[in-house]
């Protein structure tokens, strides 16, 4: 089969590789009909995650048709149409039974490696380096899906792929980001990052009853999407001071909740800080660029919540611990426990409450994945989200 493989920094190639096989009794093999490139794929592409190896198949947002099931899979049949969550979860450990699927205790065979960096290992993830299990990803014609009786959600309606594909990752991730804000009537929620996850965080904050949602980014076309689709107020941080704008919007209080949908490759509008972060990152003195997170904490109102769904991988410098501690800021975070949300969010899509396909701006065949990565990385051609079809 053909699959998109990491071949080095800023290099992916679509190569001929062996077809996946059933390795565990509860596996299924899925023929991929649609898959997408994620912002967190860019951390792999840009070379910030050292545990990736030449030849690894990337991709963790995918859906398709079941073509084979292992003997332990009772709930799926060949021919079923499924969307597959990006964390791999066994369903039986204490974390899974508590609904914390992205923390499954059993699905990372390389748990020892992850423990060295993180203290304890999170769940295995599709296509996200050997640190998280070394599972081949979904930017391919076929994928082996472990614990197929736990993760995949069956699509029984005739909704097109683009309306349900994002249940695999970015829609639940944005939704969890908004849910962690514990939104109550009257709340103002500010969202750093108007990329696909940010767009869903903004839309979800609306669904969950926020009074006002503020989108913060530097690309006007992304801010316009947030304004048009979700009625967000917008702040372009290259033109306006963010903290001033938020003080104005909230009459001096600060936002009740701040969502970081940016993560470790943040760009800062304050040039000396951006240079500082980039130099330290290049010298491997820090692994993250944390300017979005810093600003989210500093801007948040006293006693508010900072909800972090942007991906971080190691250690950041200059964390505003004094601001966080002295002002009773609640910091909530996590890789999304997708399996917890898929059923409910699918129902919302089926009821017409939201159409997730609004983020799709580019559609390419799988063979043009390298071009897709470049377009997405450099935000060319007003790119927001690239969907690939094998």
């Amino acid at each position: 089969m053909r699959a998109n493989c990491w071949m080095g920094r800023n290099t992916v190639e679509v190569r001929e590789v062996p077809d996946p096989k059933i390795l565990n009794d509860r596996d299924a093999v899925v023929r991929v009909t649609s898959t997408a490139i994620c912002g967190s794929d860019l951390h792999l592409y840009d070379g910030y995650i050292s545990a990736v190896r030449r030849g690894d198949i990337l991709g963790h947002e995918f859906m398709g048709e079941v073509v084979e099931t292992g003997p332990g899979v009772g709930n799926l049949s060949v021919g079923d149409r499924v969307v597959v969550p990006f964390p791999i979860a066994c369903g039986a450990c204490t974390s899974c039974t508590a609904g914390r699927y992205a923390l499954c205790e059993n699905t990372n065979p390389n748990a020892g490696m992850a423990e060295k960096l993180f203290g304890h290992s999170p769940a295995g993830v599709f296509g996200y380096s050997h640190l998280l299990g070394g599972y081949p990803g979904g930017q391919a014609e076929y994928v082996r899906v472990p614990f197929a009786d736990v993760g995949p959600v069956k699509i029984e309606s005739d909704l097109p792929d683009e309306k349900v594909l994002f249940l695999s990752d970015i829609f639940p991730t944005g939704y969890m980001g908004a849910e962690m804000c514990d939104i109550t009537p009257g709340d103002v929620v500010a969202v750093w990052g108007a990329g696909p996850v940010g767009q869903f965080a903004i839309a979800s904050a609306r669904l969950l009853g926020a009074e006002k949602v503020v989108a913060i980014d530097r690309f006007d076309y992304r801010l316009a999407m947030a304004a048009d689709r979700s009625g967000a107020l917008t702040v372009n941080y290259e033109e306006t001071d963010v903290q001033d704008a938020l003080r104005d919007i909230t009459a001096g209080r600060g936002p009740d909740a701040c969502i970081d949908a940016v993560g470790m490759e943040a760009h800062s509008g304050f040039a000396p800080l951006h240079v500082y972060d980039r130099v330290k990152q290049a010298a491997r003195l820090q692994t993250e660029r944390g300017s979005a997170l810093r600003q989210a904490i500093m801007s948040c109102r006293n006693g508010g919540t900072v909800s972090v769904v942007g991906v971080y991988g190691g250690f950041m410098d200059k964390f505003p611990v004094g601001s966080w501690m002295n002002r009773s800021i609640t910091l909530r975070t996590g890789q999304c426990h997708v399996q917890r949300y898929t059923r409910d969010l699918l129902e919302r899509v089926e009821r017409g409450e939201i159409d997730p396909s609004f983020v799709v701006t580019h559609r390419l065949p799988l063979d043009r994945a390298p071009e897709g990565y470049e377009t997405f990385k450099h935000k060319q051609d007003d790119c927001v989200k690239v969907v690939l079809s094998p």
Partner: protein
Amino acid sequence: MTRIAAITINRPEDEVRRRWPGVEPKLPPLHGGVRLHPAPGGRGTEVRIPYEQGGIAQRLLAVTGRDRRRVLEDALRRFKQVLETGQVVRSEASPQGTDAARQRRRHPARPVQAP
């Protein structure tokens, strides 16, 4: 110095005790100092295996993942996977499951060649 390799398994103690022999060859026998205890708050069973930390030889072995600590921890992880999910969990890069000694010869994350 005595250290402890530990894991919590989301299964009742009598089941852990009953299934201990025969599932994971690298685990010591129960009578060899292994301690089992119900985990608080309904979290299952706590398993603790004391072992000797060892000296320079163990540190050298740690480079290849064959030191006592890693062997025991990986064995406990595999045992937990079998009890909680039915099998040792495999990935294409680690088709043998959790085994630190195999880390250096990791296969890329793509399907394994047909035999």
